[in-house]
């Protein structure tokens, strides 16, 4: 087999590598999963000459975008600025979403719109392929599995057409900030952002500090206050401890009555 493979250095630690060889299209997929569970895909072209290769399935999901690996770190844009800067309806709609979901700036919204548009492009491109095309089946299944896993599509919606009907609100509803608010653990959407940023919230056992964490469906019932947080049963915070100490000192140094602080 003659093959030309381009390599590059990845600055994330690798812990699992799977190789999928697609004989029909003469493609070789190498799936590298890193410890941070971000999956990269290298789509390489391998010249296969008259040999039978077996197809081994991968256990990891596959993102359909191809990344051109250069020497050095992977770095790309995550948002796209709108074409017209001062369009009244767009400004109103964006402001409404920013207020409703407690976003920090328009860029957070544009980031979600960019992610949605890439997913829609992928789905649209897959829909132009033939129904029995192995690439369409493989990548379509992977895309739908990811959408189901993150709760963007419901259980019955397992066709690529439903991916085209996704909206920005579907994505914004799955952020950790909105889920903390909707589950009753915060007084308002802004309070939710503050709680997350101040490390009071955990998902499973992991304290999550990021308000835009996309929560998976099976992690959604494990959102709780973290064990070291004063809301979740840990010791009181710095200010309260300081006040308690000052009050105890004052009471002891006063006329000897004990003030019973909680």
């Amino acid at each position, binding site marked *: 087999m003659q093959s030309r493979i381009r390599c590059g250095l990845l600055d994330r630690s690798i812990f699992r590598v799977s190789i999928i060889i697609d004989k029909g299209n003469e493609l070789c997929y190498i799936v590298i999963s890193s410890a941070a569970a971000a999956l990269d895909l290298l789509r390489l072209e391998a010249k296969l000459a008259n040999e039978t290769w077996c197809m081994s399935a991968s256990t990891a999901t596959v993102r359909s975008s191809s990344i051109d690996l250069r020497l050095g770190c992977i770095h790309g844009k995550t948002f796209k600025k709108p074409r017209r800067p001062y369009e009244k309806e767009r400004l109103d709609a964006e402001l409404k979403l920013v207020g409703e979901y407690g976003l920090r700036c328009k860029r957070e919204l544009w980031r979600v719109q960019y992610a949605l548009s890439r997913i829609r492009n992928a789905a649209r491109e897959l829909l132009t392929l033939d129904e029995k095309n192995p690439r369409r089946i493989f990548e379509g299944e992977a895309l739908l599995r990811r959408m189901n896993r993150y709760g963007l599509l419901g259980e019955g919606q397992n066709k690529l057409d439903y991916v085209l009907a996704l909206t920005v609100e579907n994505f914004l509803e799955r952020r950790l900030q909105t889920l903390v608010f909707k589950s*009753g653990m915060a*007084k308002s959407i802004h309070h939710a952002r503050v709680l997350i940023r101040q490390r009071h919230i955990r998902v499973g056992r992991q304290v999550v500090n990021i308000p835009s964490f996309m929560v998976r469906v099976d992690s*959604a019932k494990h959102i709780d206050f973290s064990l070291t947080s004063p*809301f979740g049963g840990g010791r009181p915070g710095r200010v309260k401890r300081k006040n308690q100490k000052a009050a105890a000192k004052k009471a002891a140094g006063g006329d000897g009555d004990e003030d019973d602080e909680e």
Partner: protein
Amino acid sequence: MTSIVQSPNLEILAREPEGFSIWKGPPFNNGQPAIKLERVSCTVARFSDNGSRLMVTKNNSVISVYDGYSSNEIRSFEIPSLLGAALSPCGTYLQTFQKSTNPQDKNVVLWEIHSGASVYQHFQKNMTKATWPSIQFSSDESVACRLATNEIQFFDSKDFSKGFIYRLRLPGVAAIELSKAPGSYIAAFLPESKGIPASIQIFSSNKDAQTQPIARRSFFRCSTVTMHWNKLSSGLLVVAQSDVDKTNQSYYGESKLNYLTTDGSHEGLVSLRKEGPVHDVQWSYSGLEFAVVYGFMPAKATIFDKKGNPSLELGQGPYNTVRFNPKGRVVCLAGFGNLPGDMAFWDYKEKKLLGTTKAECSVTSEWSPDGRYFMTATTAPRLQIDNGIKIFHHDGSLYFKKMFNKLHQADWKPETPESFSDIDELVTAVNTIKIGDNEKKAQGSKSTETSKIPASIAQKPAAYRPPHAKNADSVKAELFGGIAPATEISKNALRNKKRREKQKEKKAAESGSNASII
């Protein structure tokens, strides 16, 4: 059920404005119930939780305690300015609340019924739904506790004269719920204050194990809480309600369902698939599963297992109540209150719909202790007309109906479900029932409203047509399907048409005559 000697008889207590009477329960001999106890005038009548004692308040200052089986009066208490009274679960003690003006006057008194003496008294300023009865007992009366300011006091239920034997300090505690059977846990609710979220904590009732809570759950946005223990005291369901909905979806506020287990396997929200308030939540009598009716109307109903995973979806519909059958297997979904009263009976082991029926304007609904009958009652302070009792079989067919001028209360006499045999005919009948096959039942029943369509098929509402659109051609085409009726022409149009035809004839005649001339 007179075939088996040991199983007790069912009895129904019906209270009207003049007094209450006890009927011998179903099956009725000739369509009418036999009266067990004639009318006794009273204002309040209630059984104890195990049915052994009946407490009757007469004339606002005399309480009589009757024996539940023989209906003889055991003891009578004279208590001035009485505001409320409650029996303990086994019927041993009676708590009374009197109106009091100064803190020196101990106005909550605990009487022992057997001897008639008062064993404990304390002062309580006012009586609210959350704080009455003051002293809570477990079902076997082994644990007794009371909510005092910032602490929970535990008593020795055999000997109240010692006062409280130990206490649990919880600053800010607002509501407690002792687990009923067995009484080994107590759940406490501490409302939100200053920045600290509201929390539900479960402690053990044992004095030694009370340093740390066994389970806790904190949340914001909650003003009141209702707690439901299950029969084995292994799980607690908490409905947290708030008066203001911060998500701006409902005017009536929001409610969330939390589930805590005493072994720590689940401590969190129950994931409900539809947005909206939690209308009703009930544990089954075995304590292993619970049913929730939730969501904006039409509400969804789901049965969850004790791990909090959904085990059966009962569909959507106009329901806001769920009642489990004491013998297991059957659950009744109903829409009472402001809903039209649809009832659906499901067998949740076989996952089959047994029957649907309607019981309009019902206020209360309860299964009989043996699980064979389901009684709904329309009672007076809520609804002033159409007061009555309806009794249904376990599959929804109407068995008995009686109307009253005014009815205040209709209850079964409580019995333990184990003292009755299993419903054999239910087990065999489920396999032969088809959905919608109501002919056999309709012959024997007096009901004319047994619906033949399962509740899941909702009728499509007819489209609203404004008055001026009734005559539009498109509407007519839709209604008559292309076969247009003879269009009625208005008088003017008819006249113009005639004129035009005449002119045409004249022209034709002229041209004809012209042609003939030329």
